[in-house]
């Protein structure tokens, strides 16, 4: 692979805190290597800002391996940027060429208030999990792991749903800021397994209830969530969630719901 260097113009959202209004600021970065990750390019910019005695840009990041779900930039109108199945931290600068302008915004959704610049508050996701995204089994209660065989196909499907990293790109990509892909991935992960079966009805009801309470929008089957999901979580999960939800309603699962 050919390596090269580039100069770029960045238009980045700056916002002091959740109460103040934000605005775009323009920055120039020079001599960026095509081998850098997108966040390493931001490191260069921030070092430059510190050297100029200016305040660096706040952004969320941690593992930089595409698995923790912390990074969250909206790049040129796309959650996590242009690469398919890729988080911002795994996007690399060989995507860009000399002279490009890149616009970077935070996740935009009422349920994800901005903390500062590109950093948003995603605790609504934790609260949705608290509403039922688990199997109620205390430590020490488990039977032998091989006591219940699970069809490989079901286990694989469950794993594919469990691969969600909770980054919130689905919400950011959705014009309605719906969290259906996130919620449906968790409901699918657990309801596809025999361990998750006993609580499947209350789980679906309670998690949806909490999702609505957090102010996420409704799903209108646009599919932007699936297209932008860095982990390839499929829309099938939403169909499954709808079935779970309807099943729970008709079965009187709502009686057990909060």
């Amino acid at each position: 692979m050919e390596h090269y260097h580039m100069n770029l113009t960045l238009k980045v959202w700056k916002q002091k805190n959740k109460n103040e209004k934000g605005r775009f600021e323009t920055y120039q970065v020079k001599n960026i290597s095509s081998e850098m990750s997108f966040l390493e390019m931001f490191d260069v910019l921030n070092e430059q800002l510190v050297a100029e005695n200016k305040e660096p840009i706040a952004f969320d990041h941690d593992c930089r391996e595409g698995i923790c779900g912390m990074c969250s930039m909206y790049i040129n109108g796309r959650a996590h940027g242009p690469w398919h199945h890729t988080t911002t931290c795994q996007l690399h600068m060989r995507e860009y060429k000399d002279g490009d302008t890149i616009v970077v915004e935070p996740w935009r959704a009422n349920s994800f208030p901005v903390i500062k610049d590109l950093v948003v508050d995603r605790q609504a996701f934790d609260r949705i999990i608290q509403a039922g995204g688990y199997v109620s089994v205390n430590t020490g209660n488990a039977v032998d792991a091989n006591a219940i065989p699970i069809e490989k196909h079901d286990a694989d499907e469950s794993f594919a749903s469990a691969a969600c990293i909770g980054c919130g790109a689905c919400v950011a990509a959705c014009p309605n800021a719906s969290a259906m892909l996130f919620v449906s991935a968790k409901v699918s992960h657990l309801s596809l397994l025999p361990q998750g079966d006993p609580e499947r009805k209350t789980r679906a009801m309670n998690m949806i209830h909490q999702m609505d309470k957090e102010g996420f929008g409704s799903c209108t089957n646009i599919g932007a969530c699936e297209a932008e999901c860095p982990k390839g979580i499929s829309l099938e999960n939403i169909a499954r969630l709808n079935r779970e939800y309807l099943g729970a309603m008709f079965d009187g699962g709502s009686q057990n719901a909060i």
Partner: protein
Amino acid sequence: MALNSKIPAGSLEEKWEKYKSTCKLVNPANKRQLEIIVIGTGLAGASAAASLGELGYKVKTFCFQDSPRRAHSIAAQGGINAAKNYQNDGDSTFRLFYDTVKGGDYRSREANVYRLASVSANIIDQCVAQGVPFAREYGGLLSNRSFGGTQVQRTFYAAGQTGQQLLIGAYQALERQVALGNVTQYSRHEMLEVVMIDGKARGVIVRNLVTGELERHFGHAVLLCSGGYGNVFYLSTNAMGSNVTAAWKAHKKGAYFGNPCFTQIHPTCIPVSGDHQSKLTLMSESLRNDGRIWVPKKQGDNRKPNDIPEEERDYYLERRYPAFGNLVPRDVASRAAKERCDAGYGVGASKQAVYLDYASAIQRYGKIEVSKQGIENADAATITKLGKEVVKEKYGNLFEMYEKITGENPYEVPMRIYPAVHYTMGGLWVDYELQTTVPGLYALGEANFSDHGANRLGASALMQGLADGYFVIPYTLGNNLADDIRTKAIPTDHPAFVEAENNVRDRINKLMSIKGTESVESFHKRLGKIMWDKCGMARNAQGLKEAIEEIKALRKEFWSNVRIPGDVNEFNPELDKANRVADFLELGELMCMDALNRNESCGGHFREEYQTEEGEAQRQDDQYMYVSAWEYKGDSNFELHKEELIYDVVHPTQRSYK
């Protein structure tokens, strides 16, 4: 203070069983009055907090990330060991124990390791019950694979995302306790001080990273589950935020630091591509199951890998270690790669890399598929195509990650790999109950030193984190808290809280008032370079002495010239980082002192002066069969205490993987 490891009497097999049936208990009504603080929400912290919440304790958790689910346990790829012997290949609790003690080069505590091995099977049961989607065979039963340093298949996995799935399991158990009101969760909070009252840890001072406010929290006990300190090297496979701060504050309050120099350098990471690099990415050790590691037989060979014929390749691990081949332990594999590169056989632009090649695995799997599918007279293209499909199913996500980072397709071209800092076996010294030398202060998971000796075997970190959190601390904490049931919650206007908070505030103000010219990042990079060059994969007395002086000088420079933009009372990642780097600048010195003190090579600690004729680590059991436990006495002043290691069951020998 004499170290008391509190190892129960009795035979190895009896110790933990006996402990569990005789330890003191706390009744449910009293548990509700006892408050526990848990710092860090990775596998150790989340599993401990969830289990203690289930028991009825009042728990508070703190993590610096925006959610407990982000903790760096999530990045563990390959798997988790357990002595289930589902494969009928001769595994047992004893064999897992033995492999771990041997893999650790005889520098771990037998009793702890045996307990770890004996609860390993319960961990898998617990995780499956929580809904962790481990890989399964067509019959519906769990699948296993091999890992380095073992000859059985005991590793359970979920593709290359095992850590993620286990952490989500623990996180969900934790969130359930939050919903039930047993646990209160604080995200974007960083612990900056331990509060001591009457010689016991009774709380913490934390900083709310969003508002910058300092908060006081009381606890009858404090559990540090804050992970390892590999980021002292700047470049490592740790997450950007991973740090030593919580453990270091505890150390300065009297918790001894155990074996600080024991660092694991992982052999299969993506090599450094330039000065801009912010972190290194691991390629799971599971890749060594099927991949073959080689360098050209000719020095400075610049041909493309696929142009180098088979007979001109040196599969040096298979050559040097025929019994274990590419599956030797990590320390051995890392040193062997460094040896080849230093001798001029390295590959890639930097020449600091070796090849990890999947070509023969693709052919092997392709032929199996052809035969499975009954294809007659299959041509080479079909075999290759089918082989790639199998490799994709096993390692697809890792191959994709490699391609994203390097822009090269590993199905076609061998991957380039090089060792990188990955894990720290050292950590806070703890006794058998996971209690540090500070009463009421515990350390779990990677934050403690206890189970891996001088080198950790693959797929054992997840095992240890969950063993400590799910199955050890619920017993050992109760045993100690049983004596504390009459202690009422101490109000946080107690003078000790006030003083601790003032100390934290003074330090932050001091940092902010420096207003120098050099960024925090730049100091961190400079520290990392000293550590990697002089306290990395190979160390010698001369280099370590130099490093100690260089670190002292760098620390002085930091405290007079660091520049931290922004304000104290706001979201300020530069200030967060400065707090962490300031602590790394003290820890680095202690690591070098420890490495200098240990005049032997063992596991990941390789002193060039102490090697066998074949270049293997040479232990000095007559002099160094002990845990180094360092007591903080003031700036650059640490006192060494020794915990002698007694091997009743295993007989230490020169490790051989040949």
